[in-house]
């Protein structure tokens, strides 16, 4: 089992979510997060350009069985990449080993609980 964490652009959420559903990856957790990357995102307040220190992003957490890692990752990459081959700020994907997964209702453990 793996835990896949993806940091993506806010505006790409709908697109990524729809693509994941099409790929039958339907169990996801979504968070609003802020962070530092290499991207600069300009806001304007009373005529002054402001570069926020922290840029709003969306974080997806998806726990999957090993055989679904590739399709999940490829789907996210395809849907979250900006037009014309990607831009700074499109985000990152982290994959971590997942020790255990428990479904609270039935108390079942492991791959079948995902």
């Amino acid at each position, binding site marked *: 089992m793996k835990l896949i964490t993806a940091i993506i*652009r*806010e*505006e*790409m959420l*709908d*697109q990524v979510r*729809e693509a994941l559903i099409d790929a039958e990856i339907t169990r996801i957790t979504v968070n*609003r*997060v*802020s962070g530092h990357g290499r991207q600069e995102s*300009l*806001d*304007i*307040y009373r005529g002054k350009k402001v570069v*926020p*220190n*922290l840029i*709003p992003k969306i974080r997806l957490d998806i726990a999957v069985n090993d055989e679904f890692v590739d399709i999940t990752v490829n789907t996210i990459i395809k849907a979250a990449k900006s*037009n014309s081959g990607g831009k700074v700020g499109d985000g990152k994907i982290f994959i971590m080993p997942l020790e255990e997964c428990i479904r609270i209702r039935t108390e079942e453990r492991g791959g079948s609980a995902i």
Partner: protein
Amino acid sequence: MKRKILYSGAAAALLLMMTGNLWAAEEIVLDSGATAWMLTSTALVLLMVPGLAMFYGGLVRSKNVIGTMMHSFTAMGVMAVLWVIVGYSMSFGKGVLGGWFGWEPSYIFLSGIDTAIMPQGIPEYVFSMFQGKFAIITPALIAGAFAERVRFRGYVLFIALWGLIVYNPLCHWVWSGDGFLFNMGAAGAIDFAGGTVVHISAGVSGLVAAVYLGARRGYPKTAMRPSNLVMTLMGAGLLWVGWFGFNAGSSISSGLATAQALTATQVAAAAGALVWMLVEGLHQGKATALGFVSGILAGLVAVTPAAGVVKPAGAMALGAIASVLCYLAIIMKDKLGYDDSLDAFGIHGVGGIAGAIFLTFFIRKSWMAAAAAAAGGQWSIWQQLGVQVVAVLVAIVYAGLLTYLLVLLVEKTVGLRAAPQDEMAGLDHSFHGEHGYGMLNAS
């Protein structure tokens, strides 16, 4: 009824200044009571615009809240400036081009009304500013139909053109002394405070624009939840308060007619809200807050054309009828699948049509008697119904057709529909470089 606006008002004042003819001054008496109420009404109607901004702003997703509120606020800038330059002249000047719109050179920049007092005893400035507020809120209402998916510059151009060639002519036909709907039938089409001019025209225009521009990305599959219903409720409250200026102010006086209109307004809004709650409760099992305020609006919209001619029981009936019809219209929208995002047509179009038509059956006897006298003895409610239907159809056809042409023009020139990338990122960031809800993220 709105009183006939006499061009002689301005002309007489000008004459007075030029000749310094003092005895004429006695004939123009300023009514300070009426003036005070009309000043208040003018402010109340303006209050409806930020009220509408809050109402609409709360209903869209958080990435579009600034863009949506700006649709209302921008109208305060654009329409107010246009109104002073040519709008008042086009609306209340003498009919030109076969009565298409009005024209009165001394109204350009309001230059000729500096000292004018109208026959109703109020300065013409007050009347002009009061009417100007209606010209502001009408295009702002349209924005609800195509919320969350238009380019800002396209929107600004659209409302400017719409105000000039849709609102001003309609206003002229219905409210100016020589407008053809003002004089239709025995005593004119009844549109006390803007059922046809404001709500039907805005609702139908919104529908046409929404259908032409297409649905928002993901509609109706993706759930688009309101960002802040609390703000929507406060906005609806401001709209109700402001509506007293809208309707009771439209008596252009401070007296019996004002009180009648104010009472009808209160009763219709309350009945609309209750009936909506009841219908929704029976249909869905829960009474929602958004349903309650939608009922308030449906009632207020329906009583707008009727406030001057119906008694409280009639106003109550109108509010109830409008709520049921608007509720059905919104169900119908979901069936048909067009994306009238915030139900500009579902509430303002349908509510306005319902009010303008059904008011016929609740007109107070004294009005019908006066109409009969004007017609030379006989005037039935069926004849008046005919006049009302014609006025409604004129508003629907004219606003619908011209809006289609304008949307086409704006889309092909500066562009009205937002690019998919901008729409996904949200209007706030894409067109304004701002974020409405800073506190949603650590910053």
